[in-house]
């Protein structure tokens, strides 16, 4: 569907080097990488706002490297949405349709349907700057989808929103993708976002792609240390809620069970635990500790990260401890340790 072959580009402070990817029809493809990796520039190349210095871009098998943006039929949603400030919400959504000599009745019908679908009908006459971030996001999505693009490009679509809105819109994005089936490229630096939405993930570092794979491949088996350092700052586990009460859920993650403070009450979930929140000890922690999870496990490996040690446990968790603590505890492979972390340190997202 969309194919990039050895695309390179120098633009201002960003350099893209030999980017090759292949996105399939209907796929939700996430490009994950730290800020400054050149992710936005990559999307702008795909949209045709810039022309690559080298390499080719193919859409539906046809060379689109130098095709002007208006002939690509690729939707683009910027991080801050870039709604036209001089037009009302309705006029923003209509913008693309008005350019395509469609009968007026069809334009009206399509706009009405989209605005209802996004729940923004009541905002029709408002100006973009009077809307909340979440509302602007919906308008931007409606505007992009109105022209039925072949590919939808989303540049950090959730990062400008507060957390509850983020969660709601993440669900919305998944629902939309299910409904329209539009091939989607979504750029983000947020690992949880990538994990919950992506069919496949490409990890991008300093202008080139380091790894492409299914979410669990990327998180479980990072191909190099750089990717590991970036995706590895989270423990990502899949699980199922097996009990809940008083705002605390018991979750079965396969190799062990854990407690999490979460409003989610049932179903399949993704579980995130930051490795620095996991405390290792050689003796069982005192019972009065406020931490609610204590897992006994064997150390698989200890990796030197400078001032920190990355400790991989056979229960599947990864902990980060200071060099000093690692030496005091005598941490090494095969040693049995207690991994302790608070129920509040467990971040739970429902599986989409």
């Amino acid at each position, binding site marked *: 569907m969309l194919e990039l072959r050895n695309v390179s580009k120098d633009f201002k402070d960003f350099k893209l080097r030999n980017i090759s990817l292949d996105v399939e029809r209907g796929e939700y493809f996430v490009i994950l990488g730290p800020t400054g990796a050149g992710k936005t520039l990559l999307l702008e190349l795909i949209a045709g706002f810039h022309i690559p210095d080298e390499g080719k871009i193919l859409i539906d098998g046809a060379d689109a490297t130098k095709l002007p943006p*208006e002939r690509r039929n690729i*939707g683009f949603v910027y991080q801050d949405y*870039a709604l036209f400030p001089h037009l009302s919400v309705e006029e923003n959504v209509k913008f693309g349709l008005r350019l395509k000599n469609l009968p007026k009745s069809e334009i009206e019908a399509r706009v009405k349907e989209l605005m209802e679908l996004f729940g923004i009908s009541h905002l029709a006459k408002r100006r973009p700057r009077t809307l909340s971030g979440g509302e602007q996001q919906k308008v931007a999505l409606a505007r992009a989808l109105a022209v039925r693009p072949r590919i939808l490009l989303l540049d950090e679509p959730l990062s400008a929103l507060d957390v509850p809105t983020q969660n709601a819109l993440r669900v919305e994005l998944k629902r939309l993708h299910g409904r329209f089936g539009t091939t989607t490229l979504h750029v983000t630096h947020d690992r949880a976002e990538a994990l919950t939405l992506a069919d496949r993930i490409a990890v991008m570092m300093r202008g080139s792609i380091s790894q492409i794979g299914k979410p669990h491949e990327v998180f479980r088996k990072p191909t190099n240390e750089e990717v590991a350092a970036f995706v590895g700052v989270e423990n990502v586990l899949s699980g199922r809620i097996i009990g809940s009460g008083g705002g605390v859920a018991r979750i079965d993650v396969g190799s062990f069970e854990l407690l999490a403070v979460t409003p989610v009450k049932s179903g399949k979930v993704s579980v995130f635990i930051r490795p620095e929140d996991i405390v290792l000890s050689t003796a069982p922690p005192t019972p009065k500790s406020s931490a609610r999870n204590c897992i006994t496990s064997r150390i698989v490996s200890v990796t030197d990260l400078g001032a920190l040690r990355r400790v991989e446990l056979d229960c599947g968790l990864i902990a980060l401890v200071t060099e000093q603590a690692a030496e005091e505890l005598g941490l090494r492979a095969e040693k049995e340790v207690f991994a302790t972390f608070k129920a509040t340190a467990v971040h739970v997202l429902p599986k989409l």
Partner: protein
Amino acid sequence: MRRLLLVFSALGALILAFILLPLLNTLVSALLDWQLLVETAKKSAFWQIFGLTAYAALIATMIAAALGTPLAYVLARKDFFGKEFVRGVIDVPVVIPHMAAGIALLSMLSRQGVAGVFGLQLTETLFAVVAAMLFVSVPFYVDVAFEGFRSVDARFENVARSLGASSFEAFVKVTLPLAARHLLAGAVLCWARAVSEFAAIIAVAYYPMVISTYIWEVFLSEGYRAARSAVALVLVIALLIFAALRALMKPMPE
């Protein structure tokens, strides 16, 4: 902080007084001399000249907008070798004495100049008046339009194009409306500068007369008193136009 603002306000009041006092003084003394004022206002020549001045300045502004808008857009959007040179050239008319500008234009318009090569004599024509006005006022339009286009985020154009707009359609439907207030402000400034020009105009065209050359002639032939009443009339009209434009350009409610 309060004290600082007080001192600064006092200094500001000085410059305000410097502008207002001569104008008020002229206005009041001309009003006291009301019989002469009425006589001046009754002259059809005065109103014809006033109309011609406004008309010539309007043509100059329209040319400045027609040619200056694309230039300002290119300057705002594109980085190229020599861009600062081009911007410098645009601002040259602001920094040279306007009489020098007029003499330079003479080399183009007179029978001894470039126009003469084609058997033309363009001095002492409306064409010369418009040319002189355009020369001295176009920098104001281009500079404000440039700022206007720079204030429009290029990503709006990107989005428009991703929705199917050609680059020209994106310019017309997105960039122009978003820069419209700047363009209008630039045009007003340009027009006002054109109306008030004297030196460059008198170098290329004593006739047809415009308001500044007319006041000059009245001053030379009839003296201070007569010039004063013409000036008072011009002041009143100018202030009315200025106030109307200010009201027109008030920020629209969002």
